[in-house]
Structure formats: structure tokens, C-alpha cells
């Protein structure tokens, strides 16, 4: 039975990267469509809209962070697999869920907000500072999820 432990743990790393990465890809994609529209009209706004487009991309990085820490914790990276009980494996899987699920949903929401913020830049380029803030508000919750995932993975004894 103890062979399954490592499977659950790896599944956790996969969930963290998979879901948050998917979310970020969708979010950046949504914002990218809006950004392309603005650049067709006014190529000089490229840098500004690119920055806003990138904002929903951070969830994918947070997922990568948790995935990486999990991998190094269970020894997949070092080469020597740790001996992980089913319980520990499931604990790690549970620890990875917050950033996975919140990352997925918040990145999509942030992508939509970023698309709207790009609309602000299109009409009022001088309000860039404010436009950047709205997508950043959404990101707070991904950061909170990252924190809990990180503290959990970090705290589980292997």
C-alpha cells in the first residue's frame, strides 16, 4: 500500500501546476485578445497593455512554485524517492489543492478584469496606474491560497 503514497504526492504537484497553469493561460489569453484590439488601433500603447496582459500570468508561477517545492520534498528531483505513506501522500495532495483551484479560477477572473483594464488604457492612457490596480485586487486571493499551500507543504513532515 505504501507505494501509493508517492503517487498521491506527485498528483498533488501535478494538480498545483496543472490547474493554476491552465487558469493563467486562459486569463492571459482573454487579456491578450483585448490587448491585440488596442494595439491595432494604437501601436504606441503596446508596452502598457502588455504589462496588464501579463498580470493574470502569475498564478501559473505560483502553481509552479508549489509544484517545485513538492517535487523536491518527495525526492523526485534529487533522484532518491522518499518513502511516503498513503496518509502523507494525501496530505500533500490536499496541501496542493488551494493554489490549484484558486489559481485556476482567480486567473480566469483576473483575465477578464485585465481585459476591462486594458479598455481603460485604450481610452485614458494616463490612468494606467489605476487600471493596473483592478487586476491586482483579484490576485490577492491567489496569493493567500499560495501562502496556505506553501505553509502546508512546508509543514508536512516526510
Amino acid at each position, binding site marked *: 500500500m505504501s507505494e501509493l503514497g508517492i503517487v498521491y504526492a506527485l498528483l498533488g504537484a501535478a494538480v498545483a501546476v496543472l490547474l493554476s497553469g491552465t487558469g493563467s493561460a486562459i486569463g492571459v489569453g482573454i487579456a491578450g485578445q483585448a490587448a491585440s484590439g488596442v494595439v491595432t488601433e494604437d501601436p504606441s500603447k503596446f508596452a502598457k497593455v502588455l*504589462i496588464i496582459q*501579463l*498580470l493574470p*500570468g*502569475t498564478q501559473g*508561477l*505560483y502553481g*509552479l*512554485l508549489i509544484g*517545485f*517545492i513538492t517535487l523536491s520534498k518527495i525526492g523526485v*528531483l534529487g533522484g532518491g524517492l522518499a518513502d511516503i505513506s498513503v496518509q502523507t501522500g494525501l496530505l500533500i495532495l490536499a496541501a496542493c489543492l488551494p493554489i490549484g483551484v484558486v489559481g485556476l479560477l482567480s486567473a480566469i477572473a483576473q483575465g477578464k478584469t485585465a481585459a476591462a483594464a486594458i479598455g481603460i488604457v485604450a481610452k485614458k492612457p494616463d*490612468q*494606467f*496606474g*489605476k487600471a*493596473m*490596480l483592478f487586476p*491586482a*485586487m483579484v*490576485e*490577492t486571493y491567489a*496569493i*493567500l491560497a*499560495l*501562502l496556505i499551500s*506553501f*505553509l502546508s507543504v*512546508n509543514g508536512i513532515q516526510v
Partner: protein
Amino acid sequence: MAVLKMQRISICALKKDRKAILEKLQSLGTLEVDHILDEDEDFHRMDTVGQKQGFEKAAASVDQALDILERYVPEEKSVFSALEGKKLISVEEGMKVQEERRDLLRTAKQIYDLDREHAEQLASVTKLTNSIESLTPWLALDVPLKAMKTDRTVFFPGTMPGGTTAAKVYEVLAEKAPDTESADVHIISQEQSTVYLAVICLKEEAGAIEDALRSEGFARASQTWEEVPARQKEQLEQQISEYREKVSGIEEKITALASERERLKIVADYYRVRADKYEVLGTLPQSERTFVISGYIPEAVAGSVADGLMKKYDCMVDVEELKEDEEPPVILKNNPFSANMEGVVESYGLPVKGEIDPTTIMSFFYVFFFGMMLSDAAYGVIVSIVCGILVLKFPRMSPGMKKSLKLFFYCGLSTIVWGVLFGGYFGNIVDIVSAKFLGTTITPPALWFVPLNEPMKLLLYSLLFGVIHLFTGLAIKGYLCIRDGKIMDFFCDVVLWFMLLIGLILMLLPSDLFASIAQMEIVFPGWLNTTAKALAIIGAVGIVLMSGRSNKNPALRIALGAYDLYNITGWLSDVLSYSRLLALGLATGVIASVINQMGSMLPNNVIGIIFFILIFIVGHAMNLAINLLGAYVHTNRLQFVEFFGKFYEGGGRPFNPFRENTKYAEIKEETLS
């Protein structure tokens, strides 16, 4: 840390000095025109719309000429041209161009005309090329391509559907026009869908023959030419080459005019400045002999401007304090370090009347938090060096750009400090490289502690920094209340909250919950625990009783107070928001480690090392870029939402002085500010 104090300056002078005074004011650029005098029977406004539009049109036509020049002879620009800022020219140079402005306007017109001619010639070339194309199938014809007749015969060229042969044409004629026999058909050339042919026949039979052929799809040649096609083609080609010569001649002329580009830019600016001047002139109340100009001016320069004007001209200058109800424009004035964060405050909103300029206090927190989020010494070095070099190398860049770069320079310095404290140098590159090539793992020691090993510790510190930041915000609110003499507000909205929050924090510290998080137990003496409880209770009760104090109805007042007490959750979420200091710092470090790890998995040979370096450069460049963005966005957020939320609203109007608002070059001239 201040908003510059504004005063109202009013100048009443003789009309003969009008031009000189206006130009002086414009070159000083310290006055925002704002008239208080309305039109009456003595004072009238002058109609300058015509002149203003004339100058605007001139500026636009020169701009257009510059655009055309840019199309023919693109100006050589470096990648950093956006940083170079406007060129500085001497007064003499400006004057010289000003004297030659009519010639330069003619030059602009010439460039415009040449460009139009260029387009026309090119259109002719296209037309001729099309003609040659339509002539090509007829090249084998050795008579001119047009319907001709002799005394007895008629000749006409034309086309028929593809696949038609001479035999088939004769067949058709025999069938549809059996009475004719004189037709002589020559196939000139054939294409997939068209056959080109010429027909000769007797005059009397021509009508019948053409009708018969037409029923099978015959059509006369669409174009007719006086010459034999082969010769005609030569002539057309001759014409094309003539046009092409003209085109290249025009291009040369325009290229030669490119040397005037700098002067054209200056003259465009000159017209722009004059248009602005006439716009102001149009708003001035003027009597028969005098005029009045009035507006806002920073107090610091008001005296010297007034003295300077009165000494030089016959005029009356009056500087006075603003009235109570006036909303003056805002200029921020800060120490050289904090001034760089003015752009951040501006993007949120300038202070309105009665608010203080938060820039100085914010600037320290800003740099502190930014460094903590990026927290990698090597990244800090890169950011500081790049920004430092750019600022030194391009002294003429626009002030806003300069401030932003200097802001990042200081943030980079702070990042270096945090990187050293946390032991982050490109993540863990030293460990990886030493393990890979030296066989032993060398870890650069962290001056304070490594966040990855003790995340809870850093989380607590992050929240502590957050509490300090938020309390500073609340203290500023308290200061504002005292300054405005609102002692009641100060006590109810600031002191009571401080009591409640400090009480709650003091109650939390010795609890089991805190001990399990911090892994250390804090034991307070008994009296402190009692004080904490007392503070919290007094604060809470006070808030419930006092928050709704503007309301007469006691039940409603208590309800509002209770609702205000609910704001404690707002404080909780504000403090927790500072956990991003930990999260973003970790993200930088861990992703840098991922990059290093990826590189270290390669074999330890030449190719492996080359790819290691490649992964290192690309990976860290991306990580730096995305984390720089993250640190910038989230530092702004902490300032705007958490900090400003406590005491600052913004919404002031930026100072927009009457000045030489140029696009390309600035004339070096004395300024008083």
C-alpha cells in the same frame, strides 16, 4: 512633503507691452491663467480665434511635412530614443529659425507638393504599365490597333472566346451570314480564355459579318492605338522610364530637403507656442489702453516674478492670497529622494485642498516593500545599474521618465539590501554552481535568515510591517484631525481605534494561537493583560457609542456604531494583505531556483555549460521581468488600497501653467523656478 502654496497674481499693464509680457510669462512657465474679471463696458476680450487657428494650421502643415520626410528619409533613431527627451537649442538658433519661418513654411509646402507630385507620377506609371499589359497580346499585329477603312474595305481588331480558330470563324460566317464572302480573318494570338483576331472585309458586308461574329462572342478591341503595337509598346516604355526618372528626381529633391528637418521641427514648435499665446491672449480682458492677466502662481516665485515685471515694464502687479472657496492647482514639492515617488501619488490622485502630500512618508515604505518583494541581491544590482546608467546617459529625458527610473534605482538598492539579508543571489546560483563544478556546496550566508527555511517567521514580520504601515496611515489621519481642530473626530475615529487595535494585538500575543504560529511563547505580566483587555473593551464600546454621533436617533446611532465596529474585519484583511510580502519574495527565490536546477541537470561538459549559461540568462531575465512587474504592482496596491485607504482620497487638479509647450525641442532660457 508638501503641496506648494499657490497665490493669485494679477498683472495690469499697458497694451504696448502686451506682447513682451505675455512672451516673458510664457517662457517662465510659472503661471496658470485663471481669470476672475468678467467682460464689462470697459474691458472686452479680443477675438484671436483666427490667428490662433492660423498658427495651428502652420504647425500642422510643418508636422505633416516632417511626417513626409520621415517616410522618404527615416531619421536614424537608437533603441533608447524614447529616453533622449527633447533637444536643447540655444536662443540664437531659435531666433534664427524664427526669422526664417516664412521660408521654412514654404519648404514645408514644397515638401508637401513634391509628395503629391510623386504620388501622381507613380499613378501614371501604373496606368502605363496596365496599358502595356493590354497591348501585349496584339504585339504580332503589324498595323495600328484600331478600326480602319480604305475605299472598299474595312479592318477591325477584336477578341473572341478562347478556343476559337480561323476555320471555326469561317464556319460561323458561312452559317450566320451566308451572303458574305469577303471576310479575311487573322488570329493574332491566343490565351486560355481569349482569342485576339483581326478581320478585313468589304465595306458593304462589314455590318453583317460583325453581327454574325458578335453572336459568337466577338467584341472590338477595348483600346485603340495610333501606332503599330510593337512601336506603341516602345513608346509607352519610353514614357514610363521618363516618369520613373521624374519620380527619382522628386525623391532626390525630398531627400535633399531632409537637411532642413531640425529647423522644421523648431519652426513647428514656434508656431505651436504662438498658437498657445494667442489662445491666452483671446481670454484677456482688455480696455482701450490696458490689459489684465490673472492666475495661479507658486508662492515661492510670485515675489520675484512680480518684481521682475514691475521693474521692466509700466505695470501694476498684485500678488494676493487665495480666497477660501478657491480650488488651486497642485504642485508637489519633496526632498530629492521622495520626489521620485510623486509619479506614484499622481497616478492615484493629487491631494485636494486640506489633504497633505503623502509622498514623503510613502516613499520610504515604498522602497522598503519593493525590495522585500523582489528580495534578490543580484536582481537588485541589475535594476540599479541599468536605471543608474540610463539616468546618467540621457540627461534630457522627460522629467516623468527620469523620476520613474530613479524610483526603480532606489528600489533596486533596497532589493540588494533585502537580498543580502535573505541570502538570495540569483536564487541559489552559488549553491548550484559550487556543487556542480567544485563538488562541495557553498551556501552564501544570509545576514538575517533564509525565508524558505523559516517562512512563518517572515510571515509574522510581514504582518508586523503591515501593522506599522497601517498605524502610520491612521496616525496621519489623526494629525489631520488635530490640525483642522476636529478634536472630537480625532478622539472617536483615531484614538478609539488605536485603543481597540492595540488592545486586541496585546491580547493576541500571549495566546496559544500566536504561540503555535510563532513557535515561541510570550508571557506578559498580569497587569499588561488586564490593560489590554481594558483598552480593547473601552475602544470597542467607544466606537459603538461614538461612530454614529452625527445621528440624533439613539437606536440608529448605536446601530451605526455597531456597524462601524464591524470594520475590524477590514483591518484584519488589510493586515493579512501584507502576507504578499512573503509570498512574492518566495516566488522570486523559488522560481530562480527552478531555473538554476534546470540548468544544473545538464551534463558537465562544454555543450552542457553553454546551455547552462543560456538557460541562466533567458530564465533569469524572464524571472526578473515578471517579478519586477509583480513587485511594482503589489507595492502600489499596498500604498493605494491599504495605506491611502486610511487617510487619503486625492482628486486634486495638476498645475497646468501657461508655458512653451513644445513637441520637439526646447529653447534654453532663464527660468525663475
